[in-house]
């Protein structure tokens, strides 16, 4: 057997970050590792503390407790201007009195760089975000997508070790967002820098990230690759927040070797399960729409309560008493009718009701 691949070097290490605003705890002990050259996403509902983590990394907030290092050197007490970290703000925060080129040149002009070099690097960076034609415009003459690119160019021109992005795509329309996602990922791979991205949009997180940290109520609930988080959510909250489908509550009656017998609203089933689950634990059964299909020979009979046309197929809501499932269907489902439902139990997952 080969030696395990060497773990990528950790660029940023945060341990036990705690932050309170008055009596309200915003972060309740956050541990975070950010690998060099990785695209890391903090994903969670609004108010979960993800932006606070970003502001602590950027130096705009000081944690009440915990440690934070960049390349092994503590960042606590280091002001924003002395960190090799730059931010793309949600509001873009472009300087309205400066042109696009002047905005992008701003970090370089602070360092007494030679003006020839500044001009060359500004041109190069503006080309990288495809804004070279707008160099002499003022920010208020640009569209949202263009402002976003300028903010990106201004944040990367100083070659920060870590680039922080605070929901930079949230103000854009769907098409522009999809387009910029692709560009952002390509840019990150070209620059080979660590990007830390904050979003509440799981699709965006999946499209961009090497690693996702799912946050809720001031804690990181799960860290891992997107596929891992989708297929094996750490608890019912992560399962419900990520992806579509149903999360059914129940109890584990037997557990061994990564599988468990789950007693829930659809009776006893045996499915892959979180390794730490033991008999008697409250648990959640995660069924994604792709695990459920309409099949006249299916083991369950359920009523189609709603169907949404999503272009390539239909997403239908099924119910059996209190129990709600979601399924995909190629044909328009008969609304209100009882249908046979088959569940691909081997692909479903039983997880903790709440994070252990």
């Amino acid at each position, binding site marked *: 057997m080969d030696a395990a691949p060497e773990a990528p070097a950790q660029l940023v290490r945060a341990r036990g970050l705690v932050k309170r605003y008055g009596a309200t705890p915003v972060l309740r002990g956050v541990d975070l590792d950010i690998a060099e050259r990785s695209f890391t996403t903090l994903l969670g509902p609004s108010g979960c503390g993800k932006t606070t983590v970003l502001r602590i990394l*950027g*130096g*705009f907030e000081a944690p009440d407790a915990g440690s934070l290092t960049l390349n092994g050197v503590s960042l606590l007490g280091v*002001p*924003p*201007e002395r960190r090799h*970290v*730059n*931010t793309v*703000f949600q*509001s873009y*925060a472009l*300087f*309205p*009195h*400066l*042109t696009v*080129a*002047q*905005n*992008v*040149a*701003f*970090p370089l*002009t*602070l*360092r007494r760089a030679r*003006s020839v070099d*500044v*001009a060359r690097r*500004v*041109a190069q960076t*503006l080309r990288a975000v495809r804004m*070279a034609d707008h*160099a*002499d415009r003022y920010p208020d003459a640009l569209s949202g997508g263009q402002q976003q690119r300028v903010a990106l160019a*201004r*944040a990367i021109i*100083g070659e920060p070790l870590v680039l922080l992005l605070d929901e930079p795509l949230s103000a854009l329309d769907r098409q522009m967002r999809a387009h910029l996602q692709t560009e952002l990922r390509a840019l990150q791979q070209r620059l080979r820098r660590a990007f830390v991205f904050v979003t509440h949009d799981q699709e965006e997180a999946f499209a961009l990230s090497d690693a996702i940290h799912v946050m809720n109520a001031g804690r990181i609930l799960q860290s891992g690759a997107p596929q891992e988080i989708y297929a094996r959510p750490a608890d019912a909250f992560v399962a419900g927040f990520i992806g579509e489908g149903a999360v059914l509550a129940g109890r584990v009656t037997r557990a061994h070797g990564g599988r468990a017998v789950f007693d829930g609203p659809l009776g006893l089933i045996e499915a892959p399960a979180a390794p730490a689950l033991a008999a008697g634990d409250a648990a959640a059964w995660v069924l994604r729409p792709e695990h459920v299909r309409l099949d006249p020979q299916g083991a369950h009979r359920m009523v189609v309560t709603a169907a949404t046309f999503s272009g390539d197929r239909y997403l239908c809501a099924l119910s059996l008493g209190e129990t709600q499932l979601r399924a995909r269907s190629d044909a328009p489902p008969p609304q209100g009718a009882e249908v046979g439902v088959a569940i691909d139990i081997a692909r479903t997952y039983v997880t903790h009701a709440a994070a252990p």
Partner: protein
Amino acid sequence: MKARREASAPPVALFAALCGLAPLVAMAVVSVARIEGYTLALALDLRAWREVAASPVMRGLIGQAVFYGAILACLTPLAAYPIALALARTPMAWKWLGAVVLLTPLYTGEIVRIYAWRLMLGAQGLINAALGWAGLIEAPVQALLYTRLSALIVMFYNTLPFMVLAIWAAVEAFDRRLAEAARDLGASPWVVFRRVTLPLTRVGLFAGMGVVFALGAGDALTPALMGGANGATAMSMIESLFGAAFDWPLASALGLALMLTLAGCVAALTLLAGRARRSARRSARRRGKI
């Protein structure tokens, strides 16, 4: 809405022009009138204007008004900016307190404030007492009272709230996330102020400078009560010319000359402001030019 505003603009402008111009026209007419006995006769006599131009005293008084105004317009921002920035950062719930502290001295009336300052600056005043008690001086400093300096100190105090108000309004409208972004990009707090905050709140600064210049240049009371032997101003001279001396043409000519000089200064300030903005843009463009 817009059409109505356009329709109402000409009458408003006309009213303002009449109110502003009528007294000036009257003064202009009087300034070239001739005194015959105890009455004024319409004429085109430039005697008063020649006298203003030739008199070193009158030119000195006009110069002194410009000097007071300019010094105050340049010095008050140094104190007003830190105060305005601190007020803008004050939480909403406490801003009213800042406003009260800032404005209360203005409600006490000018005379009261001036006499209060006399108590502070006099030979037996608080400042001399404190300096003597600390052993820093042996005899009281006399330069603090009845000099141009003492007039300037009190005028500085009197005009500071107006400068703070003008800058405060501009700083409140300033998006502080821009300052945060500048810090993030590597600017120290001072550089953030110089390159982001100051350029984006310049309107307030120039408005404040205009107001403070006018207040300082036009203040007759403070120099009269604080300036001692140097307490004469163009305004006090105009008053005595209108009254005791009964030389209305000379008073009018001096008044108009003063007004034209001050208007010229404000025009120059406005031009300078515009040029400063353009040249800042040009030099920034050169730095960032492709």
